[in-house]
């Protein structure tokens, strides 16, 4: 297991470096740069000064070399949009997205797995409704889901309609209670498609296990249907979910772009989008690095869970 973890961590590090460097290169070669958001019709002097400030007047190899040398010391450059060091900006945003992603993953797991057990083990009206809702939720884009939820929150006043905190949350206890109060809309918007996907996977996997001889044998021994599903078939079927946990983490990250913009959640998705629009080269690279790290962590978590539920997988890898 230690060797397995070490290998995976090495791959993660390579992925982070490659992704950040590629993001730097692509932002550099893409049309437009940060000077286009300086102001309407900046002077040539202003443009040249801004480009020099962010090393756009030097060859890419030199710029990358300087950036990489600083990045090793955890200095990821300065953001042209925020006029602040990239590191703290990205870490703060990643933390905020982390809160959102963990909440969404929990909701998606509990709802998806729970409903998948229902639909995988029976075929009544309830199952039909859940199945239909799942297909709808999988097909809905996050942008639409978040706008719809925002509209419901605005109309009913049940939940705050945006941001991560209120202006009047002062101390730490208040702060976290306040964050929790702001979570439902973005968490639901982010969790719905993932929960629906989990439900579909869990349902299919459970239905398949329920047809296996060991389940039929247990049923023949008089084990109750509920116990058969929850104690015998489900633990075997859960592999279908753990196998895609890493991919789910990735989809949460990409889904957070739209959700964080609509719900004004100050997270990594929103920061990345803003950085891309502003061609904020070092911020894009920083966001890409953290995004890759989060994705790697998700994949690693998925692999570890899979390895724990099926030890053969860690040997193979």
């Amino acid at each position, binding site marked *: 297991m230690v060797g397995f973890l070490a290998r995976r961590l090495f791959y993660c590090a390579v992925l982070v470096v490659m992704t950040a460097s590629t993001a730097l290169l692509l932002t550099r070669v893409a*049309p*437009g*740069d940060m000077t*286009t*958001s*300086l*102001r*309407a*019709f*900046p*002077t*040539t*002097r*202003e443009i040249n000064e801004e480009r020099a400030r962010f090393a756009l007047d030097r060859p890419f190899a030199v710029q990358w070399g300087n950036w990489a040398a600083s990045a090793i010391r955890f200095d990821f450059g300065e953001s042209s949009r*925020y*006029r*602040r060091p990239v590191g703290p*900006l990205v870490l*703060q945003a990643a933390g*905020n997205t982390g809160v959102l992603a963990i909440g969404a993953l929990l909701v998606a797991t509990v709802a998806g797995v729970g409903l998948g*057990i*229902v639909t995988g*083990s*029976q*075929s009544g*009206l*309830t199952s039909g409704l859940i199945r239909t809702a799942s297909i709808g939720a999988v097909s809905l884009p996050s942008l639409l889901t978040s*706008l719809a939820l*925002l*509209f*419901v929150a*605005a*109309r*009913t*006043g049940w939940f705050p*309609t*945006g*941001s*991560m*905190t209120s*202006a009047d949350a002062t101390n730490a206890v208040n702060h976290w209670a306040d964050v929790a109060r702001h979570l439902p809309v973005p968490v639901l918007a982010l969790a719905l498609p993932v929960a629906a996907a989990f439900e579909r996977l869990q349902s299919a996997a459970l239905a398949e296990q*329920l047809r296996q001889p060991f*389940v*039929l044998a247990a*049923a*023949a021994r008089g084990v109750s*249907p*509920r116990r*058969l*599903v929850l104690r015998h078939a489900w633990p075997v079927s859960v592999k279908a979910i753990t196998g895609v946990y890493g991919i789910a983490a990735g989809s949460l990250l990409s889904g957070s772009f739209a959700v964080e*913009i*609509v719900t*004004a959640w*100050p997270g990594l998705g*929103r*920061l990345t989008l*803003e950085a891309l*629009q*502003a*061609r904020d080269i070092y911020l894009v690279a920083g966001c890409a690095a953290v995004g890759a790290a989060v994705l790697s962590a998700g994949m690693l978590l998925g692999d570890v869970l899979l390895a724990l539920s099926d030890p053969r997988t860690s040997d193979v890898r």
Partner: protein
Amino acid sequence: MSIRPSFRFAGVLVSLVVVAALWLFWRSPSPPTSALDHVAPAHGGQLTAGIRADPKSFNSLVAFDEPSVIVSSLLQARLARINRATFELEPWLAETWEMTPDGRKYTLHLRRGITWSDGVPLTSADVLFTFRAVTDKRVESPLADSLVVAGKPIDVSAPDDRTVVLTFPAPSGPGIRLLDTLPILPKHKLEGALADGTFRTSWLTTTAPSDIVGAGPFVLKSYVTGQRVVLSRNERYWRKSADGMNLPFIDELILEIVPEQTAGMVRLESGNLDLLQSELRPDDVASALKAEARGKLKVIELGVGTDADAFWFCLKPEARTKDRRFAFVQRREFRQALSHAVDREEFAQIVFLDAAVPIWGPVTPGNKTWFSPNVRRYPPDLDKARALLRDIGLEDRNGNGIVEAADGTEARFTVVTQKGIASYERGTALLKERAAMIGVQLDVAPLEAGVMIQKMMASDYEAIYMRPLMTDLDPAGNMDMWLSSGGAHFWNLSQATPATEWEKQIDDIMRTQAATVDRMRREELFNQVQQIFADNLPVLYFAAPRLYYAHSTRVTGVMPSVLRPPVLWNADSLGVTAPPRAN
């Protein structure tokens, strides 16, 4: 054998929750309607406004993104201010001023007893310091160019603590109107930074709020990245209302960062926001009016906007040396033909959903002082448009629906525009349709804003459809657009010498009017410029939007303006009548 455990209870529970939620959703009450137009603002309360992005910096001499400018206008004060409702210059930190008859020397007298928000007296030394900072090369302030007249900087001196003398190197038409853009900064806080060369990086958004001192109506209380800027009332603010009450009325102004405009509208209608940063999009007006009918919002018509969507071809000869189409694009008849092809009434109806007025030049009726209605107009006339094209040798010789020159060069162009803006999409679609009627093919390429701007600045495009923003209502404040050598002369940027005779004419007249002090004479001269522009049509304008703004019904003291920010420019006079809905 059937294995079917019962989850009926779960199904029933889910159904009950859904039904209850739907019932509660539809019976949610609307906030009470109140007619607050005549309610006088009272002290106290909290007002929440939405802004689209984080401010870049609290240093108002270096940051010019819209959020930074808004925050700066709330924290800092100018010597004189342009009233956004009347467009007139009014005394601000300077209580009075005198001008010499030749318009070159202004003596300004600061108000007595004004202090910075930390209690330190505000004196003429602070004004001198601000002028020194803005013209310091290391600060790289974009404002520096605006304080240069006839190529030379304005001389500033201070005979005593309350008097500032500005000596212009040449007569200046706008005179001290340019002071509206210059916030006065505290010498005692920033002198050290200017001396050691760190002024540019002073007062970043990471600076402790207590270190940021101003003479504006509010002081910075806190800033949370990506979420909000919280401002509280400046207890030492100098201004009083007409009935002698201390301003500002409100205790706290919260600027919530809401990056998505639709989400901003939802939050405004729900009562979580009281104001938005900018006017309504044309597509949002109808829903805002419905919300007003339900008593949730108050919608006001700001008037005709001072900026309008424009369409132009790249007229830079150097950029089009190998382009045979340039032979006819540079002919005014070609552009006049396109202008005749468009029905501006229809344009206003379709592109701006009927909330616009037809225009024929860059100065709209929204700019009441400088708009000239007597410029050449181009009524919709397809026959005349085709005749104009024939006159310059453009005819559909091969019957493919596109006109060609004698050498076979087709009148076919790619029009770049910014993607994601509904009015641009409708505008380019209509323009394409109308141009096709006279045989001119326009292929529309929506691009990301940054890419489009870079193409424009590099003159790497064939045609553009977008809304170029005027930086000033006074034409002398937009010399970089009018002069052929200007960096914002967007159809042919930064010319070494005027490319055409009519551009040379405009250059000469604009220089004269910028150096003329007599207002009537300036208007006459600028009318001539507008006439020359409309005759030659380097840029085609079709309609100027009527602007609408929506705010919460609990806000009082609103003085709307077509300029941005439409309401927050007068934030010290805004009040609230009821607590906000909990967020």
